[in-house]
């Protein structure tokens, strides 16, 4: 009989060092610059990659073990949720619209993050960050897959979820998250790490996942809650990578500071603009609200981000410049965003509605300085007109910001009655922006942003109709042609929630589920 003699175990530190330092090698017949062609052009100076420390020191065997455990837990719940008709236990069918927005707007970004970290993991010359990027790349494709898988259950019953990937590349509002990630992934490896690893993962991701996922739980969506928490459990590791990258660059060379600061300024703003969608989700789309956007911003950005920037001050890093404007905007962001989707409810792949009286009172309470004064009259007018059969659908296309690609809906910092207009001239053309910050980003790298695929302009160029469409034909209906190009079904995926097929089906099915008729 074999004796099972326990071997002396390596410590965490030793195992990690064997894997990263031990398995790395110096190239001998190719120059390092040829092996890592993207490592220097951004101007970041690194003198010693061995100074890189990963505080989690996760080795591959442990990584697979814990990820497998997470998957088992996740699929046990997804199965149970589907087997028990879990979709009928959500608060009300309006909730499902948050899931549609998530699947079309966020899940494809997870896939892009997978590609981005795979690329950066290949390009960074240090073994430590390469391993961390590899793990993150695998995490991100897991997130994309588990989200698609969990949400596919809703696609069996509700409208608007049938072609999320196709929509992501074409639909007007989805160009906002899409172009955000395209901007990051087309930057160099260090900027990508600051954009996604630090600014998005460390500073902003809590604002997406924690309130959204906790909100999903609060609204009875076990499926979304579980994939959300499962993804978020990887996020702690990603955040740590993002913070280590910043510290590492700053410790390696003092010349890196201004470059890093500019990236932080840029990406804190780009990320916050993308989160406009989340602000609206929290304040308007969750039937049972968990906390307001403003509260989430205060807890996760002002308090938590404040602590982070105070800590980074020793390297000379300062709070991103845009924070002052964002602080003013937190009173208005969600209301202005929801008003925009209410305007263009005929061209969205989810339903919109006016909040009921209780919900408006909640908004007054959460936004005492802004809601009753500026936004309640707007919503009440729309509600009353809809009741008279005159529901407002804006059919004229909006002007967009050249950088964030969001319709020019944002108001002047400090004056919520005036749209904020900014413009710049570059070579032969004028360019327009929603803010000083988007303008500044453009002016630093105009050659990049003059290529923006702005959905409104693309429609006017005739690039957003199904193949073979003749826009000069008698009776041509441009809106119908654009929706066909988006693969949106008019009357099912779009328009008001009131009277929608989703609303009728949910009520009917819930009735069947809770009675013997």
């Amino acid at each position, binding site marked *: 009989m074999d004796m099972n003699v326990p071997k002396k175990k390596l*410590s*965490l*530190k030793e195992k990690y060092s064997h894997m990263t330092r031990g398995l790395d090698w110096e190239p001998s017949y190719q120059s390092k610059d040829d092996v890592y062609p993207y490592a220097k052009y951004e101007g970041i100076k690194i003198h010693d990659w061995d100074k890189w420390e990963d*505080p*989690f*020191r*996760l080795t591959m065997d*442990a990584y697979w073990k*814990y990820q497998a*455990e*997470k998957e088992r*837990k996740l699929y046990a719940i997804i199965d149970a949720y589907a087997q028990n008709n879990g979709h009928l236990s959500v608060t009300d069918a309006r909730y499902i619209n948050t899931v549609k927005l998530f699947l079309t707007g966020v899940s494809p970004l997870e896939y892009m993050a997978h590609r981005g970290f795979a690329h950066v993991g290949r390009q960074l010359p240090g073994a430590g960050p390469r391993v961390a990027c590899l793990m993150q790349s695998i995490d991100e494709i897991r997130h994309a897959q588990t989200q698609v898988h969990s949400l596919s259950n809703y696609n069996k019953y509700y409208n608007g979820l049938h072609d999320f990937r196709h929509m992501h590349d074409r639909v007007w509002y989805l160009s906002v998250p899409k172009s955000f990630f395209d901007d990051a992934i087309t930057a160099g490896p260090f900027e990508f790490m600051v954009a996604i690893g630090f600014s998005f993962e460390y500073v902003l*991701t*809590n604002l997406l*996942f*924690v309130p959204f*996922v*906790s*909100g999903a*739980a*609060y609204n009875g969506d076990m499926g979304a*809650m579980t994939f959300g*928490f499962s993804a*978020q*459990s*990887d*996020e*702690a*590791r990603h*955040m*740590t990578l993002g*913070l280590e990258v910043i510290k590492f660059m700053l410790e390696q060379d003092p010349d890196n500071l201004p470059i890093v600061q500019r990236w932080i300024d840029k990406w804190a703003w780009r990320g916050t603009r993308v989160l406009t969608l989340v602000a609206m989700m929290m304040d308007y789309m969750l039937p049972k609200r*968990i906390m307001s956007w403003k509260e989430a911003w205060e807890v996760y950005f002002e*308090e*938590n981000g*404040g*602590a*982070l920037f*105070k*800590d980074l*001050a*020793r390297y000379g890093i300062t709070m991103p410049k845009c924070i002052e404007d964002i602080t003013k905007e937190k009173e208005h962001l969600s209301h202005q965003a929801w008003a925009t989707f209410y305007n263009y409810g005929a061209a969205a792949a989810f339903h919109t509605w006016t909040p009921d009286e209780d919900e408006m009172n909640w908004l007054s309470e959460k936004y005492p300085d802004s809601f009753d004064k500026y936004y309640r009259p707007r919503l009440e007018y729309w509600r009353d007109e809809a009741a008279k059969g005159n529901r407002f659908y804006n059919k004229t296309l909006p002007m967009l910001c050249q950088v964030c690609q969001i319709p020019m809906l944002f108001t002047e910092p400090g004056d919520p009655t005036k749209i904020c207009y900014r413009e710049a001239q570059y070579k032969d053309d004028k360019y327009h922006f929603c803010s000083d910050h988007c303008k500044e980003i453009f002016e630093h790298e105009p050659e990049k942003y003059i290529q923006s695929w702005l959905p409104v302009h693309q429609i006017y160029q005739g690039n957003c109709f199904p193949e073979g469409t003749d826009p000069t034909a008698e009776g041509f209906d441009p809106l119908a042609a654009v929706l066909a190009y988006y693969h949106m079904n008019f009357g099912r995926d779009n328009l008001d929630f009131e009277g929608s097929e989703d609303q009728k089906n949910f009520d009917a099915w819930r009735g069947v589920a809770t009675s013997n008729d």
Partner: protein
Amino acid sequence: MSNVFLALQANEETRAIIEAITEDNPHAVVHPSPAMVKIDAEGSLTVRRETIEALIGRSFDLQELHINLISLSGHIDETDDELTLHWNA
């Protein structure tokens, strides 16, 4: 000194972990919210393997934390025995 925080899923496995954290960090404040718990602590927060093991009656690998971890803030120091979050300023 700023707060660090650790957010965990609220489930059977984390019940003992949260108890151990509060035992080892008397200054920590636990905020329960739907399906999760956020633990704030001024300056630093330490998770100790031995305290958790004493509560669950089996050996515990600190990296098991990853399964139920939602989010955190602060710099991390991790050894086989302890995981500490802290701010330097």
